[in-house]
């Protein structure tokens, strides 16, 4: 029985570890400035937790096999523990866990404590059952007013986010169902939701933020690789949650300017 347990526990441990190490299923390649920092912290955490995982599980398997009761087993060592050992492993674990945490917190601070750089591209993200809309303020750099009374999701586009077209600042606002971003530019995202909570998740950017009715949450990202990236809603928002899908196209500054100009032209 001891041997059977050892084999099962070791097998589970080694097979599980193999797929982590082989990265058979893994994070997509990073495509935003934050990705390399997050992935670095990830790798460090993986190595440390992996060592603890292997040591604990392999040790467990070994102990249950080694100390199984047989007629020739020696008497047990009558011990109620060892205070010195307790203190040592408590201290080591505390240093490991808290140290790891402090290392990761600098990345968090740089992402969340400071606002976007001046001159960042402005994009407003609006989540609603079950679509994403993106609004660009246009040449005036100002978002026009929106009103809940004007929201008409069935009409899509400007009407869906309730854009008040009589507001002068709204004249040049561009609302789209697909997100375009210029590469290597900081983006100042303004995240909103009109009905229930949604979550704007772009795995390749290592970016996720809930969009919450009543809140306007500012976050910043900087895409670094030209390409097409998928957006998935990550907060349960109703029966269509699984199909609340969107796309981000990261393009060169030149292509971005052309795209935005074409949208402006369509409006006129």
């Amino acid at each position, binding site marked *: 029985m001891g041997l059977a347990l050892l084999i099962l526990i070791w097998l589970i441990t080694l097979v599980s570890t193999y797929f982590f190490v082989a990265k058979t299923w893994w994070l997509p390649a990073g495509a935003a400035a934050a990705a390399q920092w997050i992935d670095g912290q990830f790798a460090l955490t993986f190595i440390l937790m992996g060592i603890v995982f292997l040591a604990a599980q392999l*040790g467990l398997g070994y102990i249950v096999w080694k100390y199984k009761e047989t007629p020739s087993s020696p008497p047990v060592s009558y011990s*109620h523990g060892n205070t010195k050992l307790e203190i040592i492993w408590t201290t080591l674990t505390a240093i490991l866990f808290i140290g790891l945490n402090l290392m*990761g917190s600098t990345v968090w601070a740089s992402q969340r404590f400071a606002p976007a750089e001046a001159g960042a591209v402005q994009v407003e993200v609006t989540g609603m059952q079950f679509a994403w809309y993106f609004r660009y303020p246009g040449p005036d750099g100002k978002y026009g007013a929106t009103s809940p009374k004007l929201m008409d999701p069935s009409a899509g586009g400007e009407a869906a986010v309730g854009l008040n077209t009589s507001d002068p600042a709204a004249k040049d606002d561009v609302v789209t169902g697909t997100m375009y971003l210029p590469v290597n530019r900081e983006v100042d995202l303004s995240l909103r939701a009109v009905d*229930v*909570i949604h979550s704007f998740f772009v795995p390749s950017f*290592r970016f996720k933020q809930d969009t919450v*009715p*009543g809140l306007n949450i500012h976050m910043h990202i900087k895409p670094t690789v030209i390409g097409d990236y998928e957006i998935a809603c990550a907060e349960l928002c*109703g*029966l269509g949650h699984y199909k609340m899908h969107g796309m981000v196209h990261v393009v060169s500054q030149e292509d971005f300017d052309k795209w935005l100009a074409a949208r402006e032209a369509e409006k006129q």
Partner: protein
Amino acid sequence: MATPATVHAHAAPQGFIRKYIFSLDHKVIGIQYFFLALTAVFVGMFLSLLMRIHMIWPTAVLPLVGEIKPETYLSLLTMHGTIMVFFVLTTAPQGGFGNYVLPIQIGAPDMAFPVLNMLSFWTTFVGFVVIIAAFFVTGGAPLHGWTGYPPLSALQSAGPGEGLGADLWITSIAIFCIASLMGALNFITTTLDLRAKGMTMMRMPLTVWSWFITAILGLLAFGVLLSAGILLLLDRNFGTSFYVPLVVVNGQIMGHKGGSPLLWQHLFWFFGHPEVYIAILPGMGVTSQILSTFSRKPIFGYKAMVYAMLSIGFFGFMVWGHHMFMSGMSPYSAFAFSILTMCIGVPSAIKTFNWLGTMWKGRIRFQTPMLYAIGFVSLFVSGGLSGPFLAQPVLDIPLHDTYFVVGHFHLIMGVAAIFGIFAATYYWFPKMFGRMMNETWGRIHFFITLAGTYAIFMPMHYLGLAGQTRRYSQFTEVAYQAKLIPLQTFITYAAIITISSQFIFVINLFWSMFKGPKASDNPWESTTLEWTTSTPPPHDNFGGVTPVVHNGPYEYGVPGAKKDYLMQTDPPVDGGHEKG
């Protein structure tokens, strides 16, 4: 102060109804809780089976159920989570085994408040009936998930099931909270006031400590959830706006203004995180008890184990914000919640070290309770080590609301807790029902369940890393997720096999209840008080005798003793000591 003699004023009942239905006997009530949880776990497991089938074969027409629609899938996951967390993971370890074993282990004739005890069971039962009713009302069961985040859960028009079904859902939870508050009061009073002579706090079995701490957590947590639930009912039905700001659903302006969706999340997780420990602490207690008994060695670091559980309980109330790193909460508070969460990993690690230390140089006996206790340690390690990923806000960015989280909490608070329940069942079954369970089938059940559990939940970590979001009924809409369907299919097959194998357990349970070999008073050669009395124990637990305790709870392999163990009531031996 209540004393054992005054509490047990009620004589042994005679009629069937007073003996088995509205019983005041903690042992009968414990068994009632156990069977309620057993019913609930099969309902919850059946729902998860339907979910797994729907994900892989979305158009399958199933017998009885028909075709599952995406919204039905969301109802299934909501009800699966709610039933499992409340009516299984809270009910079985605490209401079931805690009720049955705690009074006997401290040498009391019953709980401090037997009528309150009966009331808390029947209130729980009503809660269960109410939640099951949600399946059968117009619109069906709610689809907002077991966490019920408003505005989705607060607006009747936000989706199917958000009408009467959602009202029944929140009502059931509120009823459950009331029942748990009554139970918690009873457990705390009993532990503090009804201990036999010589049963000092530091001689209590670790199981008693775990139920005691769990009860304190319950007392502090369920009151908050109850209040939060009442506010949600008001928002849903009486036009208040605690949780709902001005929102527009489908082009319609709802009549709410100024509420905060994050308020619910704070209140819910202020309950929800301690709830994780409510589910797992009794499992830790029973694992400690069993590892010591079946290794024939004293528990390694008894005092450290007690302090670890106390600090887990203490820190457990200060970490709720780690569920909310992506919620829009202040990033500065995320920083604090994250450090505190890492702190809670320390006592958890101490427990693991001490479990390994207990088995080290022991004489391990591999009866089924021991197998499950060893399985608990393995699952606790695996589920625990994904914690430090999720506890770091930066790593939570890619992982939050993905299958990584689903794998993490199922391993640690789902199946590890379930392994604790299995260990407790195989261990105390002889005492409860007077007969032994079948060992061969117990072992077969264990090996399939351990392997199956890992086959289901370990791949979920890989899915989460690859960005597979939670609560998706289909994976075909997002291109990168469609590539993960083969792994999802593997999980579904593993789930079908593992769920099927649970019938081995049920058949063993009922067969042994009537046909198993008769159990002796102390079949495992254990030391705690429940093994000093007859099997099953008489109505007043000790047949008119009040036990007097002389020894600590885990005196195995004491040099100079006649046997390799000393019962807690045995006269102390020179070689024995109680130092921690």
